[in-house]
């Protein structure tokens, strides 16, 4: 690996952040500019949404289940096992549903976008597209952003529900608790703030996944190896950004929504 000076390194990083910010701003602006590529949005939505169903369902279900197993142990010690529904639902809806779904989709689609766009860059297909009079920001990036935000929103809701079902499964089968009590406990404990927070997050995470994936793809350099590198970096960057942003969003919303 070639060595570069720290100032040069810092300069590169700042430039990269600047480029990323520019691209992000442009992708938002493009949502309101013609032409809008509906067919591409639908295609991406299908790829991201329908394609991610299995992993989202599986990961949601087992997370809800393991949450129930873990908390049952603690709750039993305090004699409040009946609160298990509440615990599972709050954790799933506010935190684990959005973050896990985000991480799953980041692993699957941020890498997909980076490798697809990266290959197009290194084989000059992006240049060809520009030469043919199409703006790749509109044709490739904008549909991915829209589709990811939209689909992650619904995937998260699905993950929350499946997680609750996982908790129910454990409560009923392993802990012999009353199913009706679990459900009413789970539902009633949710207030507007919880649901709101749980639905704002996927919108932000979806945006992060798509813009980071596209950014690494569009800036890929250096043949197939460069595309591979871009793919890995996209997943890493998107995942880390998701967990970091999650903390800030949670803290911010807790203040704004005036949690007790």
């Amino acid at each position, binding site marked *: 690996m070639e060595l570069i000076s720290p100032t040069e390194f810092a300069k590169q990083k700042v430039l990269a952040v600047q480029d990323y910010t520019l691209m992000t701003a442009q992708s938002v602006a493009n949502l309101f500019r013609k032409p809008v590529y509906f067919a591409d949005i639908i295609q991406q939505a299908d790829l991201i949404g329908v394609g991610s169903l299995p992993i989202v369902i599986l990961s949601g279900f087992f997370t809800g289940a393991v949450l129930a197993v873990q908390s049952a142990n603690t709750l039993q010690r305090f004699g409040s096992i009946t609160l298990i529904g509440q615990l599972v639902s709050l954790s799933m809806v506010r935190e684990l549903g959005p973050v896990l779904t985000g991480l799953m989709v980041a692993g699957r689609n941020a890498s997909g976008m980076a490798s697809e766009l990266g290959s197009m860059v290194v084989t000059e297909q992006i240049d*060809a597209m520009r*030469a*043919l*009079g*199409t*703006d790749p920001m509109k044709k490739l990036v904008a549909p991915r952003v829209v589709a990811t935000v939209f689909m992650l929103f619904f995937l998260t809701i699905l993950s929350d529900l499946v997680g609750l079902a996982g908790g129910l499964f454990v409560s009923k089968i392993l802990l012999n608790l009353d199913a009706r009590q679990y459900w009413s406990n789970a539902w009633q404990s949710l207030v507007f703030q919880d649901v709101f927070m749980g639905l704002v997050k996927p919108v932000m995470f979806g945006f992060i996944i798509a813009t980071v994936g596209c950014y690494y793809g569009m800036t890929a350099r250096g043949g197939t190896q460069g595309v591979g590198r871009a793919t890995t970096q996209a997943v890493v960057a998107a995942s880390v950004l998701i967990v970091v942003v999650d903390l800030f969003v949670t803290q911010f919303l807790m203040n704004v929504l005036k949690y007790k």
Partner: protein
Amino acid sequence: MSAPTLPLNSAAAATREAAAHAIEFQDVHIEFEDHEVLRGVSFCLPFGETKALFGVAGSGKSTILKLALGLLKPDSGRILVLGKDVTETPEEDLFALRAKIGMVFQESALFDSLTVRENVAYRLIEEQGFADAVIEQRVLEALRFVELEHTIDKFPSELSGGMRRRVAIARAIITQPEVILYDSPTGGLDPITSNTIIELIMKQRDVYHTSSLLVSHRLQDAFVMATHQFDQRTNQMRALPRGQFCDVLMSFLMLRDGKVIFDGDVRQLAHSKDEYIKEYIS
């Protein structure tokens, strides 16, 4: 083979009156990572003319074509394409201009997830407002022009290098652009396929009067272009008698160390006293 569209529509005629040249470079400089590739390149491409660009690998031929399309921005200098300054125009406004220019990339750059049909039809689909039947017909015409109708449902990965190059030409000419930029269209191909492609380019020049820049590795191809003319009746190229070489709109431009060392027609090239050029053409 039939003509895809009219050679010169009224809009094209209008630009020809407004602009002096199809393409004009004025003292263009560009560097990549401290390596100055173009160091003051100036030339004009008159309407209807084909200019062949020469130079060793890495001399900046592809860079010139990308600059003309506005895909790259020069560090200094001005580039006028169809009367429009592409160096000043923001990317957003360049798309309309690019619709009037066709480009054949060095490695074809076909969209590998689209079929040949979708690749060739790309511009028509993007422009919208064309009926499916019209698109299909224009695609078939363009593919017939490059004699590849049978590949219409194939993917680019299923074609040979020469076939991909011809599909790229079909994609570039489907809207009959006013300017076409060919980047090494015959590079790495066998002589027979090369000849077919040279004939296609000649047909664009002599039948449709398209202005074009032709990057070539083989001087021989450009000489053929300068000494032959496309004959519409026989649908073949025809050798010109010696005295008529200057009747075809063909010129040559040679790059060396980031500068233009030759810009002129075939006769001037043959009589050049420059040692480097003599060696190059021998």
